[in-house]
């Protein structure tokens, strides 16, 4: 991607020329139409379908990926602490710090820190970033613990935690070993100093994670309909 930047500039320059000439040719109506449609240089995304969960925020944070996500600071989070806060892989983590306003859904209060991450002096820690900032009712799923222990004990044992690695070939990137519903945004959990050390990516700048890392949680072997017909 970083190779031959000079060629990119040529393409951009040609595009600008083309745009300018087309404006002259097509006239003001197009300019108006463009400005009405909001074409002023900002990012325009396709309309989000109705629903609560979906692959809608897969590229959030890519704008900051180049800066602090590449930071060499150590956030101190480990797989052990990551797991201690969840009942099972994919379960919502509990809130490990005090929450001042118990009457709030969370929302912007939580997102102030958990929306973009970074260092929070109050807790002397790098914040984990939420992979689903579109959901504002944080306290629907995440609770602070007010006490330790259990009411009457528990014999629950969770699903095996996903194993790391697992590349099929020496040259192939490891697959994604967990379900990604509500965690479509890889960078939120795998990049930056707030990420868990063992699963932090070395190359957050590559952004399009699923270009190389395939989802591999499907335990069904695909079979041709009709079964094996070859001799």
């Amino acid at each position: 991607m970083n190779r031959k930047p000079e060629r990119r500039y040529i393409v951009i320059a040609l595009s600008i020329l083309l745009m300018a000439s087309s404006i002259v040719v097509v006239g003001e109506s197009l300019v108006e139409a463009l400005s009405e449609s909001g074409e002023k240089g900002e990012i325009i995304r396709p309309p989000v379908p109705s629903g609560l969960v979906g692959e809608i925020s897969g590229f959030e944070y890519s704008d900051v990926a180049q800066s602090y996500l590449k930071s060499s600071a150590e956030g101190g989070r480990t797989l052990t602490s990551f797991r201690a806060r969840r009942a099972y892989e994919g379960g919502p983590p509990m809130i490990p710090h005090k929450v001042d306003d118990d009457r709030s859904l969370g929302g912007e209060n939580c997102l102030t820190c958990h929306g973009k991450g970074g260092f929070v002096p109050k807790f002397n820690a790098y914040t984990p970033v939420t992979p689903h900032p579109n959901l504002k009712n944080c306290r629907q799923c995440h609770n602070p613990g007010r006490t330790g222990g259990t009411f009457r004990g528990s014999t629950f044992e969770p699903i095996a935690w996903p194993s790391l690695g697992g590349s099929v070939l020496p040259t192939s990137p490891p697959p994604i070993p967990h379900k990604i519903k509500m965690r479509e945004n890889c960078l939120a959990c795998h990049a930056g100093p707030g990420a868990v050390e063992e699963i932090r990516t070395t190359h957050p700048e590559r952004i399009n994670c699923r270009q190389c890392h395939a989802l591999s949680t499907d335990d069904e072997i695909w079979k041709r309909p009709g079964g094996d017909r070859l001799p």
Partner: protein
Amino acid sequence: MKRRAFFKFAAASAAISAAQSFFPSISFNQEGEENSGNTTDTESTANPLVGDGVEWKKTPCRFCGVGCGLLVAVEGGRAVAVQGDPASPVNKGLCCVKGYHSILALYGADRLRQAYVRKEGTLVPVPIAEALDIVAQKMKETIAEHGKDSVAIYGSGQWTIPDGYVASKLMKGAIGTNNLEANARLCMASAVTGFMTSFGLDEPMGCYEDIEHADVFVLWGNNMAEMHPVLFSRLLDQKMKRGARIIDLATRTTRTSMAADKSILFAPQTDLAIANAICYEITRNGWVNQEFVANHVSFKRGKTNIGYGLEDKFKFEDAATESDFEDLKDFLEDYKPEKVEKLSGVTAADIRYMAALYGDPGKKVMSLWCMGMNQHTRGTWINNLVYNIHLLVGKIASPGNSPFSLTGQPSACGTVREVGTLTHKLPHGVVTNEEDRKMAAEIWGVPVENIPSKPSLHTVEMFRALDRGDLRFTWIQVTNPMVTMPKLNRYREGILKEDRFIVVSDVYPTPTTDIADVILPSAMWIEREGMFGNSERRTQHFEQMLTPPGEAMSDTWQLIEVARRLGYKKLFPWSYETHIEEIWKEYGRFHAGAKHGMAPYEVLKERPGVMWPFVEGKETKWRYNADYDPAAKPEVDGSPFDFYGKPDHRAWFWLRPYEPAPEIPDEEYPFWLNTGRVIEHWHTGSMTRRVPILHQGMPHAYVEIHPEDAASLGINNGERVKLSSPRGEIVIPASINERGIPAKGQVFVPFFDEAYLVNKLTLDAFCPISKQPDYKKCAVRVERIVA
């Protein structure tokens, strides 16, 4: 699969070190794996990826009436993980903290694994077959000695549909008593009588999809953010995407108030006056949908000064008299906003604001409510009154225009309301109707004379009858009345009297199993096959995924075992392997037809729930509207509406006045007491408290006091205070400015905690029409405890 995984893993391991030298910038995470603390080494060699050996199966959530679709991961005979079912139109892949941790409720260390029988005062373990023998024997003896109306079954909105169906067939068809009730009487009865009196048929005309069409949501005493969190997230989603407005009309400031566009506080009981004031404004401003009202609405008056049911054997029957629009205008003269402002504390401006939202022809409005309106001594009335508002402006039975009654239990609708496990009900219709009795007798294969034509005991009266001694034997399944009954001290003392035999089927020890003579261990939720029906008429099937612990047995099969021991084998002939399917097929005959047709068993197994009426392979999203409902046959040109539940094919607008609560604060007991719930715990907490993360998040109950009241009483946050009412007292920690803030002069206690039994204080007054008690209003004293 395991082979494939093994080769994949072996190949990868062998090659990784070589690869790392070629691609130094890419981490292969070998070191991460070593540090990961994964103890199942052999497992992870064979199964390098999650998913191997794990099966994901669909089920509705065990908890509230929203009915979220879950996918549960089952591995090695145990439930090991949960995700929201993206295919479910209810929750679209999202859950709340209870749903995500629902499977942990199966694994409390003190699960009941065996039956117990009380011998010489002590509960001793016995084989379940012996316990079932004793239950049947005791039932027989009691009937022989005291008659068939001396035995009762008290079930629950957590009963699966087959549980409730078998209980109804046993009590009403086989034994021949109407002593069958369920705890949904305490939470949904006013919703039912509201629907029946206004529309003639139970359950909402709309569905959750209304949320995506509505412009305004008015929440009537409904803390949705904590009680129906996934639906509330759907509301929030519409607020963010489309600018829909949320109005929180409540007596207490909650998370819902904080998230709403407008929070309006009203004085307890004055919702009746507020609803009428909204109608007054709509009428005065000419916002009435004249055409809709002329064609589709009848006006009725009922009785007034109807009492509160505080005395034993209280009787009340409403009677409708004709009214009309002119009569309504006279009636509403008493509810001018300025006058209602004085009564309710809601400003006339806010009343006009709400009226304007309902009245604006350009806005689609959804009203939502649950316990606030239902647990109300005028619960039927306030349900009628909110329907009135929607009827006056014609905003009903079309996408986004929807008065929507929410439920609290997973199958309050599916089981208690649709199967009809209440004293006056049958799976189709009511016991007082001869045709309905004939239908039940025919399907059940019993003589029609078996089914008594008179309702017997509603829930409060059932517990009063136990106290009096009219009732001698009660079998309680899936509910915890020794925590939930109002005026608890009376009913606890009553049930403990000599010669009262109590059987309790449950999954954990509770204050109710504590008083039992026999405890039957139940299979819970996905440890057996069943169906639940949620608030939007959606029936959801779940298969048996797990083996129940020890000798635990499903409530359905417990009932069948006892029925057979009572000599009713012919009526309960089903094989263990297929009994749920066979019960579903038999039950389905009650609802056949366009008004309530149920989906076939095979369809239920396949889909993430199916809404009834299910007609010719299609669900009905909006009832009474011919554009969506094949049962609607409109007779007015250009109008799709047909309120076919009533004989005149009209919805009934009931002129219902404001009447005060039976007990209001005075000098001796100067505070209003309100009870309710918190997001972490469900019902009496007997399941959710066994979930570590939920217990840790909310370890005990508390009393919320307004900060100014606390200051004047000298009470600090966390200090223990004494609450007392004429019926009892409790000592409980104070909560000031935390989860919720009651209005001044009010206190609030969540009722999940068996250590702080707030129902010792509550009043057993009920709505005379629905017989549902009011847990939201009584008078208490609040005292600082001097150390």
